[in-house]
């Protein structure tokens, strides 16, 4: 390895940071996929949940001096409330409209939220007072960021809790049933409105968590935070829009590919141009969709004649 210019340590560190970045994408994608699975809404406003979540966490922890470990769950509650408010005030009225109109509604919400956020908090980047900072752990010659370790831990916990909830709670069961067949679920007495609200609340909370995790460690809270959601698009579509498992797998895959591209591409494939790691997720997305048009775990649409 040493002759090629990329050392083993660099490779291990890259793999690790790829998993950490991927965990953040997975968190973003998971919130997105939950709303899609339960309500069939492609929620562009999820980018606002991430952005707003980062700022609310900062407001609580930095401005009001709340302990970070308390500020994070509080911010997630706030995110959940915003999600439910959105569903009740706007999205519910569009039931039965073309999917495209509903996408546009969430884009409208995205514009309003993003601009109100930057009007309230201003354009500058600021550090989240997370307890991890830029500390690193040394394992031999390999340096791992503590914030990345925490991100991976928190993401695993959130994903685990989410799957338990989905499998064993009655609301989670209702969500799965509604996602499979809304009419049949309604006929068995499942309250679709409650299911939709729960999905939006979960998405708001997960988006907030993703926003806080993205701005912890070396990251910062700023107006560009929501833009990460656009890199998470490939993550969830690679996994398949209907699949929470796919969101996690897709997130990790995209994170790893992006970090590996950043490390290896300038050396081995310089002809692809500078900064190729920024488009690598989209390139991977197109290649995977050419082979599997519904993503790795998505449900193919059945065509009957």
């Amino acid at each position: 390895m040493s002759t090629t210019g990329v050392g083993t340590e660099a490779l291990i560190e890259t793999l690790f940071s790829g998993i950490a970045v991927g965990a953040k994408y997975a968190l973003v994608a998971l919130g997105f996929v939950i709303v899609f699975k339960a309500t069939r809404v492609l929620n562009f406003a999820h980018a606002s949940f991430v952005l707003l979540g980062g700022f609310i966490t900062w407001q609580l922890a930095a401005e009001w001096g709340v302990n970070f470990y308390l500020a994070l769950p509080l911010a997630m509650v706030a995110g959940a409330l915003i999600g439910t408010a959105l569903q009740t005030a706007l999205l519910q009225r569009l039931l039965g409209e073309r999917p495209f109109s509903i996408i546009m509604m969430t884009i409208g919400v995205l514009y309003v939220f993003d601009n109100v956020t930057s009007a309230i908090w201003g354009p500058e980047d600021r550090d989240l007072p997370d307890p991890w900072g830029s500390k690193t752990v040394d394992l031999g010659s390999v340096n791992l960021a503590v914030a990345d370790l925490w991100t991976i831990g928190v993401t695993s916990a959130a994903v685990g809790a989410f799957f338990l909830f989905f499998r064993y709670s009655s609301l989670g069961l209702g969500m799965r049933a509604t996602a499979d067949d809304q009419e049949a679920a309604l006929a068995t007495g499942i309250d679709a409105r409650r299911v939709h609200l729960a999905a939006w609340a979960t998405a708001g909370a997960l988006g907030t968590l993703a926003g806080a995790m993205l701005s912890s460690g070396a990251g910062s809270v700023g107006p560009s935070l929501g833009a990460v959601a656009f890199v998470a698009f490939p993550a969830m579509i690679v996994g398949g829009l209907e699949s929470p498992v796919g969101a996690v797998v897709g997130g990790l895959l995209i994170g790893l590919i992006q970090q590996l591209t950043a490390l290896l591409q300038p050396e081995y494939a310089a002809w692809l141009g500078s900064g190729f790691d920024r488009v690598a997720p989209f390139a991977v997305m197109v290649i995977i969709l050419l082979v599997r048009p519904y993503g790795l775990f998505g449900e193919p649409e059945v065509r009957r004649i």
Partner: protein
Amino acid sequence: MTLSHAADLRTIRGPWRIAFSVVLVAVFFALPVLISDATLGTLILCGAFAIGAIGLNLLIGLTGQVSLGHAAFVAIGAYCTSYLGDGRGWPFLAYFATAIVLGLVAGAVIGPFALRLRGNYLVIVTIGLVFVSEHVLRNWESLTRPVRGTAPTRDAAVAIGPLDFGAGLDLGSALYTREQSMFWLTWALVALAAVVAHNLTRSRVGRAMQAVRDRDLAAEVIGVEPGRTKIGAFAVASAMAAAAGVIYALGLGAIDYQELSGIHGLFMSITFVAIIILGGLGTVHGSILGALLVVYGQRLIANEGAAMPILGIPVERGWMSTGELNGVLFGGLIIVFLLLEPRGLAALWARVRTWFQGWPFAY
């Protein structure tokens, strides 16, 4: 009401429409003489967006294929103007035609992706288009000049025969400015695009598009080829986007790849989609009304916004900048229209027309 086939095929029918067309033509010729060059500049931009929106409406409103990558094709036209028109000194019709052909080809190449992907998957893949085009443009330095900044378009020739729109028309007795001349050229092209799109919607091709939109399986059964129709719609929409890009570049005088691709490109694509939603999905005149509302509104706030009051406080002294106000109003407009008038300005217009036609009866 006549029921003959020939009368039905006429583009302009009925006394109301004839009168309205006469008014439109009169406004077209009189407006540049009556209003300032700055306002004309904004209206030229409105015209560029109107051409692009007419194309996108064929794709989304008529064929039902949602795309958020429209800006990538606008960039093709814009860079044709800069590279061929400004850099190489090609005549207007030559680089304009090249832009349209390149747009057509690019749309036909991207189109096949649309065959494999449906609905939401297609929306997100087309978002990838603007990010990929950002990468290409950032690395293609000889074309986009990312180091030195913007690529110029102002010196591109805009002459058709003896009429030189770029330098300002000189019609013997009268001299007109560049803005006045460009207004006439732009809105003549808008009219041309509108007629092409209008005739397309009424032809076999247009009916095939609508059949594919409503239910592509049924369309296939009755003999429409969904694949060919979708690719064709992509190609036509992209060609019109490239044409819009030429006018956009000429109107601005210089272009920047960062405004046409990446996250700003996505915002531009969203603006196009918002235009056709606010104007009216699947209608040609809706695309034009929407472009006037959105682009003129955004420019108005950008130019005059600082002096505008919110709740009695001028924006410049309040807590929100004009850019933020612009974004909030844009998003709010989309939300309000979707809740109150999902069929857009075209439906409002139809309501006004019915009221006049029915007067003095309610309906």
